[in-house]
């Protein structure tokens, strides 16, 4: 090696992060700052007004002290108590509701991805074609379809079929209490807390049902989850289609695809491997960007189906209060907690997806 000898060994290489690791670090370090801004917005919008009320929580000793107190309370789970559930801590209510919502979200997002990814690829590839036309139409109308109408019609349409097939009604995620009597039980099993529709030990109904070997319970929960997930997916398939098929169309004309085609690689491979790789990162980004809208949609579906999830808590928070000032304080405080939780989910999701998408993007990284 020029310039190196036994007397002058080469200087040890300084530890250097790869560009990707540097980007990931930068992006992760930005997260606390983003969360801080979100909390500050929430403080200004929801907390300060609730303190200014006569009858609001007393003792805001200073603007920044109040902010610090709110942040501490948010992170330590000191969220107050529910006036609607006879003084149950809000942290318990959320811990009962979150697993059901997460389980539904997992199915709905998987559903949407499984449909939208191949269809958008095909539509972008074969343009103009009937597939392309249908995708454009679906992507337009699907986003505008109010889920409360679709959900209501599905419940009304499936009611008697569900009753005949499962001896249950299509609302809720768990089978209704009377279903157990129909199955020969004198009362529902002890691992289901029916007042909160909460299953033990994990809170995820499908997992808990499997752990207890309750297979007919599993069947009903799965069917109900799939119905609700399909309704939520209608909206998100439309959003994914609108973005992804444009990228698929552009990707199909890119140099590497044209070059691969000229080498005689079959269209099938070009579509699923070459174009697919390019679409995957955009698909993930749309997944992330659509999450705030997704959450709103899922909550409405949960409220329509009367699930005991986060949607039901939103509904109760909005409608359970009476127009008295003391109750508005409770609404503001529980709304602040709800938004705090949602913001954490969204920011973490955005970060994860941003990092994965950058890893998946096959385009050369220049100027970034």
């Amino acid at each position, binding site marked *: 090696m020029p310039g190196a000898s036994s007397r002058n060994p080469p200087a040890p290489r300084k530890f250097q992060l790869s560009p990707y690791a540097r980007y990931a670090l930068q992006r992760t370090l930005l997260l606390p700052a983003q969360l801080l801004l979100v909390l500050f917005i929430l403080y200004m919008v929801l907390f300060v007004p609730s303190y200014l009320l006569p009858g609001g929580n007393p003792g805001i000793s200073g603007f920044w002290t109040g902010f610090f107190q709110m942040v501490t309370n948010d992170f330590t789970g000191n969220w107050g108590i529910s006036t609607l559930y006879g003084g149950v801590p809000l942290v318990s209510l959320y811990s009962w509701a979150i697993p059901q919502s997460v389980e539904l979200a997992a199915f709905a997002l998987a559903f949407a991805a499984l449909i939208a990814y191949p269809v958008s690829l095909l539509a972008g590839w074969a343009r103009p074609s009937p597939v392309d036309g249908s995708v454009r139409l679906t992507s337009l109308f699907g986003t505008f379809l109010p889920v409360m109408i679709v959900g209501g019609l599905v419940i009304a349409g499936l009611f008697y079929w569900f009753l005949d097939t499962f001896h249950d009604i299509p*609302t809720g995620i768990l089978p209704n209490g009377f279903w157990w009597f129909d199955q020969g039980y004198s009362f529902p099993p002890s691992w289901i807390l029916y007042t909160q529709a909460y299953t033990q030990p994990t809170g995820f109904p499908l997992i808990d049902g499997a752990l207890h070997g309750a297979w007919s319970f599993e069947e009903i929960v799965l069917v109900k989850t799939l119905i609700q997930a399909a309704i939520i997916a209608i909206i998100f398939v439309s959003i994914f289609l609108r973005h992804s098929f444009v990228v698929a169309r552009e990707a199909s004309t890119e140099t590497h695809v044209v070059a691969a085609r000229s080498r005689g690689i079959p269209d099938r491979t070009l579509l699923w491997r070459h174009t697919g790789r390019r679409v995957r990162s955009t698909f993930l980004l749309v997944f992330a*960007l659509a999450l705030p809208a997704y959450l709103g949609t899922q909550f409405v579906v949960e409220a329509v189906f009367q699930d005991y999830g986060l949607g039901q808590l939103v509904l109760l928070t909005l409608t359970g209060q009476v127009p008295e000032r003391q109750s508005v304080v409770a609404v503001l405080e529980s709304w602040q907690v709800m938004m705090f939780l949602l913001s954490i989910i969204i920011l973490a999701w955005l970060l994860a997806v941003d990092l994965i998408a950058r890893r998946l993007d096959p385009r050369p990284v220049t100027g970034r």
Partner: protein
Amino acid sequence: MIPGPDEELAAEERDIARPSWRSRLARRPFTVGFWAGVAILALYLGAALSALVVFRTSLGTLAVNPAWIPPAPFAPVIGPTTDHPFGVLPGLGVDLFDALWQATPWDLGIVAGILAFDVLLGWMLGSIAGMNEGGTLDSIISWFGDTLGALPSFFLVVGIFAGLSILAPADIGLPLFILLFGIIIWPATARLVRDRARTIARQSYVEATRASGGSRGRILWRHVLPGSLPAVLAQLPLDVAPIFFVLIVFPWFWDCGSSGAADHEGGLVGYLLPGIPPFSPLPSVTFPEWGNLLAVGTCFGIPVSLGLVGGPVYWWMFVFPLAAILGLALGIALVCDGLHARTSMRWHVR
């Protein structure tokens, strides 16, 4: 006077250097879809203008017939007839055709106002961020936009309105809703515009402008803003959906989720009455607005919403308000897609 050959040649050269709108239109005509979209939007505009004349004395309040207020089975179900082409909406007690017509100027105003903010902020800030990729301005705009985008619009609007219902109850209303929603909705547009603007900022013709002494303002105005218009046009139709989502969900949660069974004075009436939350952007439940009409129509038209599973479905109560919203969305999407096809560089090449 007949122009001489020199004059004709000069006119042709002028046309090549700076083509007139006629020659541009002749070279790249608008699509059929675009003209269909223009026709739909013109129809809506005509309906809005005529509503301003017909309902001029009571534009902000629906004409309620007390006999139609109770829902079935307490009041007769009136479907579409010649007297009531879209049927009657119980609960509110209004003729649906008149109500939708009366609501047209309000909804067009709401959508136009919010989209104007969305375009103005998203297009401008996204272009500035893209032009300054990696710079301080880009970092600030992207950070702020990403953070704001992390707050679901429905929850943020509800939160802000609930807070304002305490601090400044008199200021809550549609103008504030338009302003707030416009401010909340721009990050998605800005993100897409930024992506396109940073590509444009690296193009050779932009480099040439810069090298020949073109100011940053000129580059932004002449190259980056026009070049990133297709991104705005692609996003704009999608931004109409969350506006109506919020306008429907506000009253829907209240109508279908509240325990009801009491009139506005607290007396028991044996059926649900539509209402709006105390922190709604609408001044009253009888305010003509498509989202409000659709929410009430869904609650009373699909009985499952009221817990009456297995009851009849009154389709007209939700189909017509939904059609009004979908029609407007279709018009905007067709016009945007038509403009997108003309402005996108990729399409020009083809």
